[in-house]
């Protein structure tokens, strides 16, 4: 890309700011109107997309910005789901408070997972977090008195301020939390923390020379990321109303990582688009007889080969050309 292209890009970005706000507004309006158009199943799929988007937003801060790979996000998601369910059903806390407490608890666990990240990099870190994920999942499985182990937990519909939350209610709650999540991730990624994470990804020594303690920011990144995953878990538990340790296996962690990479590392839009791709495309492929898995797998390969910057990179390129 040339210097001239850079300048015209800056100018166009300024000019297209209005256009993108309008587009964003339209997307939000469509999301608000969705329950009036979709059937029950469609609404379920859309809520699940929102739940996964929330995980992807947090994971993208960790992987896309700070450059730390995690293969234990399914476990964070699971701890959030179980914590919310147990706090609501057994302790009797209000649903929203349970989600918040579950999120904070999981953020603390995330901070602990960051300890090996201070010494390990790339693949080595991935394997260490994989181990953590397995351990957390196993703890959920074995702690029968609290989690009912392999029997799973069946949940009754949640209530907020005495009103039982149906599918539509849960959808709007998810939409609200995703909106908040986008706003928070936007602020962090464009503030001092986001910049610190970017330079840590580039070089920890350079970060140190700029007065940025890499170890502390890795802990912060893991904690924020775990918080997002856990809040999503709290929504997920009441979306499916039956949770089981097997829901939160390494396979799901890999799926989360795929969402972030397919959507676009280090972008907020990419987290949303990646989650949508991962949830909605297999649903659309259901009509293809016998082969939805095959087609979806091939699509993943094609997206990665043709769009190394992810789907969001493509959206941006199209936006620039328009």
């Amino acid at each position, binding site marked *: *890309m*040339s*210097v001239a292209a*850079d*300048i015209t890009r*800056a100018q166009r970005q300024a000019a297209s700011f209005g256009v993108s706000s309008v587009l964003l507004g339209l997307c939000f309006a469509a999301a608000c109107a969705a329950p009036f158009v979709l059937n029950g199943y469609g609404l379920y799929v859309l809520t699940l997309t929102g739940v996964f988007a929330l995980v992807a937003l947090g994971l993208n801060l960790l992987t896309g910005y700070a450059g730390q790979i995690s293969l234990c996000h399914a476990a964070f998601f699971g701890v959030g789901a179980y914590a919310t369910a147990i706090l609501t059903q057994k302790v009797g806390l209000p649903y929203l408070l349970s989600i918040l407490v579950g999120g904070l608890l999981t953020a603390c666990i995330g901070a602990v997972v960051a300890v090996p990240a201070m010494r390990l990099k790339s693949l080595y870190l991935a394997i260490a977090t994989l181990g953590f994920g397995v351990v957390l999942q196993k703890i959920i499985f074995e702690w029968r008195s609290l989690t009912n182990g392999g029997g799973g937990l069946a949940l009754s519909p949640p209530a907020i301020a005495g009103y039982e939350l149906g599918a539509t209610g849960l959808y709007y709650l998810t939409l609200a939390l995703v909106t908040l999540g986008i706003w*928070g991730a936007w*602020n*962090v990624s464009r*503030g*001092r*923390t986001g*910049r*610190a994470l*970017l*330079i840590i990804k*580039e*070089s920890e*020594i*350079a*970060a*140190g*020379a*700029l*007065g*940025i*303690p*890499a170890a502390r920011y890795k802990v*912060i990144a893991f904690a*924020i990321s775990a918080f997002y995953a856990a809040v999503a878990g709290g929504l997920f538990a009441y979306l499916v109303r039956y949770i089981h340790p097997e829901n939160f296996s390494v396979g799901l962690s890999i799926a989360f990582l795929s969402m972030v990479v397919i959507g676009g590392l280090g972008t907020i839009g990419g987290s949303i688009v990646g989650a949508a791709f991962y949830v909605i495309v297999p649903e659309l492929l259901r009509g293809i007889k016998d082969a939805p898995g095959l087609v979806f797998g091939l699509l993943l390969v094609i997206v990665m080969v043709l769009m190394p910057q992810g789907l969001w990179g493509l959206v941006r390129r199209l936006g620039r050309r328009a």
Partner: protein
Amino acid sequence: MARLSVENVSVDFGGIHALRDVSFELESGAIVGLIGPNGAGKSTLLNCVSGITRPTRGQVRLDDAVLSALPPATVAGCGIGRVFQHPELVVDLPVRENLLIACHRSLGYGLVSELLKLPNVWAAERAAARRVDHVLERLGLSDSAELAIRNLPYGHRKLVDLGRALLMEIRFLLLDEPIAGLNDAEVAKLRDLLLRLRQELGLGILVVEHNMPFVSGLCDRLVVLDLGRLIANGPPVDVLRDPKVMASYLGEDA
């Protein structure tokens, strides 16, 4: 007037003595050149001062505070800036954003304020943006502020790296081969800039550099290392005539 003191510093890597009992001082407003052949221990010494390497024996002090037990980020926070030989910048980000990274400490707001973008965040970011503008102007990079680093020539990248150090309210600046890869015009500009920084901010500057005309023209004093030992410390004219220096560094028989 601050003083950075290297006191009897030795560094052993396994059986290798990278530095042996090195002592010298750097005062505010002084420009000192650190020279010596490859493998003399110059980079190890810079790493000791900036907290990356811990001395096996001896210590580094800033006035009365001992720096050598502190992590690099804390040392940087004490006002010791470090510019590396190869600038480590985020190449996808514009110059301005790269400079904002260095405002990390002065921004100072907490994570919760940041998540919610409270008014104190707005105010701090505006103040940081003004400081960045000021540094851009000082470096002559105002026109490149919005360019991505990847579109910047190498010389400008090195200036951005220097700009980051300046944004940290430093008292001492450690430069590792600042003119490597620069053309003559850029070298002259950098020289003027360093002299101006010394005059306006009272910076103490420690420069590692191989280019003799550059160091002897810029520095008040030269410190010479050879095989981890300090063999000379004095004004350039004296040091460059020192037989020991000529023997070891210039490879001539004394």
